[in-house]
């Protein structure tokens, strides 16, 4: 079976800026695939290359095995949920939802019926006659979703769709999107800069940096086995030591200065710069004597080795240690 989406050596530059730098990957049918990275990393350009808003300068984009490198968006069976929703302000909600059918000259009665079905699917059955300006952010989000799904696309593209919503709504929508994807069985390609969102929703995640994919893996592998320093920092918030290996904050022991370390452990000394109470955990920022910043966390209330007070003040000298088994070797960037 053909991959839902395939990039082969795809290149796209805007003047002197290389947005996508000879990228190759494949997305399987039915996958929930996320593209994660900071702004300017190339993830959004990749999404736009799939949609057809950008055409590649070089390389091949395939949808379901068909080369679409020169195909305009309106001839691709792919639909997009935009970051700003992009609802047409001069149309009602129902007209927005049925737009894709109407431009394909589907009879009006069918348009109406299917539009109402889609609105019901996103729990907005009563909103058809309203204008986009009369909707809340979450409602606009649902209309955008209904509008994109009415064409029964092979692939649904979502460009940071939850960015404008507040935290509670975001979390609800994450679950809802994931359920919707399972139910419809469509390939979802989800662009985000929020690593928590990418990890919790996706089957696989591609981490973008400077126009390239640094690592493409399952969320668990990305978290536990980052391949590069960039992935270790950006995805896991892990400590990168000497740019050679990563150690997770929860694997670092904090003890009083001069305290020893178990056999087989690495030990450094440093000074606490900052300490934060974060509810479930306590977190320390330590500047080591060779001037690296290391973060250590400990479940709040857990006993600290040596029986020291957990709420050490900034300025206190401490010894940090971690087991060699927790050290993840990194490839050079």
């Amino acid at each position, binding site marked *: 079976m053909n991959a839902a989406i395939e990039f082969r050596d795809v290149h796209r530059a805007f003047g002197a800026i290389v947005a996508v730098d000879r990228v190759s990957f494949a997305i399987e049918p039915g996958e929930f695939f996320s593209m994660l990275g900071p702004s300017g990393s190339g993830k959004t350009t990749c999404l736009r290359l799939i949609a057809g808003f950008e*055409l590649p300068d070089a390389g091949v984009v395939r949808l379901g095995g068909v080369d679409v490198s*020169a195909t*305009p968006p*309106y*001839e691709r069976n792919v639909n997009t949920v935009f970051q700003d929703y992009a609802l047409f302000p001069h149309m009602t909600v129902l007209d927005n939802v049925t737009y894709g059918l109407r431009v394909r000259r589907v009879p009006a009665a069918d348009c109406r019926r299917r539009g109402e079905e889609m609105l019901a699917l996103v729990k907005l059955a009563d909103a058809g006659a309203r204008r986009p300006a009369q909707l809340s952010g979450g409602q606009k989000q649902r209309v955008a979703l209904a509008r994109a799904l009415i064409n029964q696309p092979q692939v649904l593209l979502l460009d940071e769709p939850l960015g404008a919503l507040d935290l509670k709504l975001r979390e609800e929508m994450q679950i809802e999107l994931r359920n919707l994807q399972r139910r419809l069985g469509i390939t979802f390609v989800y662009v985000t800069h929020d690593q928590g969102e990418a990890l919790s929703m996706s089957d696989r995640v591609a981490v973008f940096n400077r126009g390239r994919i640094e690592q493409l893996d399952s969320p668990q592998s990305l978290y536990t086995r980052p391949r590069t320093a960039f992935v270790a920092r950006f995805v896991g918030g892990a400590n990168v030591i000497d740019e050679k290996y990563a150690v997770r904050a929860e694997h670092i022991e904090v003890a009083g200065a001069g305290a020893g370390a178990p056999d087989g452990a690495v030990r450094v000394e440093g000074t606490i710069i900052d300490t934060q109470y974060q509810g479930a955990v306590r977190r320390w920022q330590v500047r080591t004597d060779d001037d690296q910043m290391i973060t250590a966390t400990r479940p709040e209330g857990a006993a600290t080795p040596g029986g020291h007070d957990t709420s050490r003040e900034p300025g206190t000298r401490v010894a940090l240690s971690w087991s060699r088994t927790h050290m993840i070797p990194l490839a050079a960037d």
Partner: protein
Amino acid sequence: MTAVAAVSTFFYRRQTLAVYLLLVPPLLWFGTVYLGSLFALLAQSFYSIDEFTATIVRKLTLKTYVQLFTQPANLDIVVRTGTMAIAVTIAAAVVAFPIANYMARYARGRMKAFFYVAVMLPMWTSYLVKVYAWRLILAKEGILNWFLTAFGLDGVLEALLRAPGIGGPSLASSYLGMFIVFVYMWLPYMILPIAAALERVPGSLLSASADLGATPAQTFWRVTLPLALPGVAAGSIFTFSLTLGDYIIPSVVGAPGYFIGMMVYQQQGTAGNIPLAAAFSVVPILLITIYLMLARRAGAFDAL
């Protein structure tokens, strides 16, 4: 695929080609009618007139420019026009600022809309009707005179008209009168860019200034005015350029001295000397180019 869709797809892949195709008709028009005319103007300015036969000699020469820049009367005209343009620009900025500031900062909702309409309507009202109105207002037995006499202020006016340089027999035939008309005519062109610049200043900046201990006057001089300067610069492009090129106002409300626009008008008309008219009209182009470069530095183009 329908024919329309096929064409759509063809141009989707070649968007730059589509842009150039769209540009062909307007560029043809601008290239031939406008740029062509400007080149013709430039060419004419390098022709000369045969003084005996009064025919135009179509041979490139600097004779006309030499004539333009060596006759003191011509230089006087350039200096007089430039001085008027600068004076009008400064006065328009001073008069416009309080209006723009009020409509941008304090007027809200319907009142704001009212102010914008109230500034825009006179701007778009017939140019000639406005000039005509001022001719009637400023005439010797005119409306302003009637009002000043009614309030016992006619003495002040007479004192002003006796002033050397700006005075004259009546306001309608003095540089002072012309100056007033120019300021009136171009005032909206100054108000709107300043208001636009002030609209973009977030209210929080003024709150911050007040919060940090600045009096309203200090806030005005240190925050409001610097942020509005690009708007003033943008407005001044209009007031300066419009004053430089105008020939109707100096001939309807005017002192005896000539202005660049009047010279252009007269040389091409009664004198039939198109080369000299063309050479004269190159002067405001140069002055405006210099002015635009200065205004660009002041950020005027961001405020347009």
